[in-house]
C-alpha cells in the first residue's frame, strides 16, 4: 500500500446502543475488511449463545467483561481500520453512563464527530448534547448520520425534516462544517457502499466522506508554538557542547535561521538546527516531534516555550476557561489543584464559577455553582505563575488544560481557555 500521502483521521462516535452506534462501527470494520476470522468466529459464537441468528455486528465493539455482560460500553474504546486512502482511529464513546466525561475525552483529539440520529425519533436531547460537546471541543467536522432509514421506508421527507431540525438548533452553536447522510447501518446502506434504496440522495456514503474530508488544515499552521518537553545533553564524544530542546511542535512552522523568543524568560536567539531523530531538516511543522538547537546558550528547561518574536501567546496568570468536571469528587473551593498545560505544570485555584451550562438546552445557570461529575461551567482560574496560553478556538494544543487533585493524583477536570 502506498503510505506517502495517506493521512490519519481520528473521529469520535457517540450514541447509545439503541441508535445503532455499535452496529455502525461493526459495519465499517466489517465492510472495510478490518475484522479477522478468529474475531468473527468468536462473535458468531457469542451471538449464538445469546440466541441471535447470524452475526451481531455490535459485538465487535464489546470490550471488557462487564460490558459484554451488561451490554453497555463503560469507557472510551479505540478502534482502527485502514482503507487504501486513509488510516482511521475511532474513539468509541458510550452514550449513557458518564457520557459527558467520555465524550469530551474522545472528542479532544478528533478531526471529526459522527452524530447518530434514529430516523424514527429525529433530533432528541442526546443529539443536542453530543453536538454541543462537539462544538465546545471545536471538532472541525461533523457528520450527521440519520440511521435506521430502512424503518422509515427510506423516506426523503423524513430525512429532510430531520436535517432541518438539526440546522435549527445547531445554528446557536459554533460549528464550521456539517454533512448529512441517510444510512442503514444494519444493512449497510450508504455506509461503505451507496444505497440502492435511496436513489434520491445525491451525497456520498459515509466512508467516502471520511476518506475525503479536508483535514490538513485542522492543525493551526500559523502561530508557531514549541513547548519544550526535555533538554538533550548527550555528554559524549562529538556532542560535548550539544544542547537540544526536544518536543512536539504544537502549531505552526519552524525554519533553521529563524529568530525565536523563549518564554517566559523573553530571551531571543536563532534556530541553529532542527532534527527528526538522526535526520537534520531545514523546516518542521506541527505535529512533528523534533529536537532544536539554538545559536546562543540560553537557559531553557521543560515547560518553557519557543515561539516567534512577532507572534506570541498571551502570558497570563488569570484567565477564563470552559471547564468540564470529570471526577466523582466535586470541585472544592479554595483548593489548590495542579494545572497541566502543554509541558508546563503549576498550581491553580478556581476563583469563581461564572455559570454552568445545561448540555441539553444550552441554557446558562448562574444560580447553581456546584461542580460535580459531568458538569460544564465557565470559571475564572488563577495560577501560581504565568502560563503561555492561546484561546482554545485558535489553538487546541496551547488552549487546553487539565486539573489534577494532588490528594488523589487523579485528573479531575479538563478545560478550554476562552
Amino acid at each position, binding site marked *: *500500500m502506498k*503510505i*506517502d500521502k*495517506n*493521512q*490519519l483521521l481520528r473521529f469520535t462516535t457517540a450514541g447509545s446502543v439503541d441508535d445503532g452506534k455499535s452496529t455502525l462501527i461493526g459495519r465499517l470494520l466489517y465492510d472495510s475488511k478490518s475484522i*479477522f*476470522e*478468529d474475531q468473527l468466529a*468468536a462473535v458468531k459464537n457469542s451471538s449464538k449463545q445469546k440466541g441471535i441468528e447470524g452475526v451481531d455486528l455490535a459485538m465487535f465493539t*464489546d*470490550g*471488557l467483561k*462487564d460490558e*459484554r455482560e451488561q451490554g453497555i460500553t*463503560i*469507557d472510551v*474504546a*479505540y478502534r*482502527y481500520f*485502514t482503507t487504501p486512502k486513509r*488510516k482511521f482511529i475511532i474513539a468509541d464513546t458510550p452514550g449513557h453512563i458518564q457520557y459527558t466525561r467520555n465524550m*469530551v*475525552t474522545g472528542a*479532544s483529539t478528533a478531526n471529526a464527530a459522527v452524530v447518530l440520529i434514529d430516523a424514527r425519533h429525529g433530533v432528541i436531547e442526546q443529539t443536542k448534547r453530543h453536538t454541543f460537546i462537539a462544538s465546545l471541543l471545536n471538532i472541525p467536522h461533523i457528520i450527521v448520520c440519520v440511521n435506521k432509514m430502512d424503518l422509515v421506508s427510506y423516506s426523503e421527507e423524513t430525512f429532510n425534516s430531520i436535517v432541518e431540525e438539526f440546522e435549527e438548533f445547531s445554528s446557536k452553536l459554533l460549528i464550521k462544517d456539517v454533512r448529512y447522510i441517510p444510512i442503514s447501518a444494519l444493512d449497510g446502506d450508504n455506509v461503505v457502499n451507496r444505497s440502492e434504496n435511496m436513489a434520491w440522495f445525491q451525497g456520498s456514503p459515509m466512508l467516502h466522506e471520511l476518506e475525503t474530508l479536508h*483535514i*490538513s488544515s485542522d492543525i493551526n499552521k500559523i502561530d508557531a508554538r514549541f513547548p519544550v*518537553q*526535555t533538554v*538533550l*545533553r*548527550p555528554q*559524549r564524544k562529538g*556532542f560535548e557542547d*550539544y544542547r*537540544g530542546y*526536544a*518536543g*512536539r511542535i504544537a502549531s505552526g*512552522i519552524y525554519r533553521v535561521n529563524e529568530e525565536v523568543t523563549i518564554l517566559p524568560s523573553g530571551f531571543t536567539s536563532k534556530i541553529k538546527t532542527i532534527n527528526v*531523530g538522526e535526520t537534520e531538516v531545514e523546516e518542521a*511543522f506541527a*505535529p*512533528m*516531534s523534533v*529536537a532544536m538547537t539554538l545559536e546562543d546558550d540560553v537557559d531553557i528547561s*521543560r515547560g518553557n516555550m519557543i515561539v516567534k518574536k512577532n507572534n506570541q501567546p498571551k502570558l497570563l496568570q488569570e484567565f477564563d476557561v470552559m471547564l468540564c468536571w*470529570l471526577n466523582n469528587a466535586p470541585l472544592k473551593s479554595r483548593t489548590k489543584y495542579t494545572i*497541566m498545560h502543554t*509541558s508546563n505544570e503549576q498550581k491553580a485555584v478556581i476563583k469563581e464559577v461564572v455559570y454552568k451550562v445545561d448540555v441539553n438546552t444550552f441554557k446558562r445557570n448562574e444560580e447553581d455553582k456546584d461542580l460535580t461529575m459531568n458538569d460544564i461551567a465557565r470559571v475564572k482560574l488563577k495560577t501560581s505563575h504565568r502560563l503561555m496560553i492561546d484561546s482554545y478556538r485558535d489553538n*487546541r*494544543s496551547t488552549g*487546553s*488544560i*487539565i486539573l*489534577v487533585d494532588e490528594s488523589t*493524583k*487523579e*485528573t479531575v477536570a*479538563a478545560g478550554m481557555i476562552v
Partner: protein
Amino acid sequence: MSTYYLNYLEELESEAIFILREVWGQFQNPVILFSGGKDSILITHLAKKAFHPAKIPFALMHVDTGHNFPEAIQFRDDLAKQLGVNLIVGSVQESIDKGRVAEEKGKNATRNALQITTLLDSLEEHKVDCAIGGGRRDEEKARAKERFFSHRDEFGQWDPKNQRPELWNLLNGKYFEGEHFRAFPISNWTEMDVWNYLTKEKIEIPSLYLAHQRDVVKRNGSWIPNSEFLKLEPNEEIVSKRIRFRTLGDITITGGIESDADTMEKIVEEVSTMRETERGNRSDDKRSETAMEDRKKDGYF
C-alpha cells in the same frame, strides 16, 4: 518538503516519540519492557530517535521465563550492547526456586502467568516507576481500553473501569509511593503499521519472524516449535515445515504459521492479506474470552 502535513506513519512516529519524551519528563526511573519481539524492538528504535544524539535514557528490562527462543535472547543481548543501555533480566526460574510462584500443572501448563510475579518483583527491586511496553490497542479487546499512561496500584493491578481520562496531549503520570505506571507509546499502531514502519526504517528484527525451516508439532491448530521443553502427546508427531512467527512469546506457546515470506516486503504483503489476528496463534489468549483482561488486571504486560 512541499506539503505541510504528515502521512499516518510519520504521525504515529511523532506521537510515540512524544510519549517517550513525556515518560522521561515525568518519571524518575523508567524502563523499557523488552521481550525481544518486534513491538519492543520498535519501541527501542523509537526511543533512540526520541533522544538522539543522547543515549536512550532507559534500561531494558526482560522478564525471562527460561522458555525462550535462543535467537531472541541473542538478539536482545546484541541490541543492548550496541545501544550501550543497561539490561535488567528478571528470571521466572528464580521466582520458582525462591518459592514466589509454583509451576502450573497439567497438559497445557505454561509459565505465562508466572511472569506477572517476576515482573512486579523486578519493578519493585529496581524502584521502577514507569514500565514502557509495546502493547497495542488493536491486539486484543482489553488492550483497546488502555491509556498511554496507565496507572497501576500498589499491588500492580489495573482497574479498567476507573481509569484516568486522557485528553489532548496532556498525560497525568502522578502516583503515590509504591504505585507505578505503564506507558504504551505505540497504542495507536496496528500490526500492519508496525510492519510497514519496520520495513521503511530498515529495522533489524530476529530471523524468527522470517520464513525458515523448523521442526514443529501441530497443536490446537498452530505449529508449535520443537524444543527441550516440549512434551509430545501420544498422537503428536514432529514434522519439518517452512514457517515463520507473527509474534514471539514463550517457545512453548508461540505457534508459527506456514509461510514463504522471507523478506520484510513479503511479510508486509502477507500481513495485508491475513485473515486471522496475530494473537490467534497464542495459546495464552485462547484460554478464555477474558484471558487477557484477567491477566492485565493482575499486572500483566
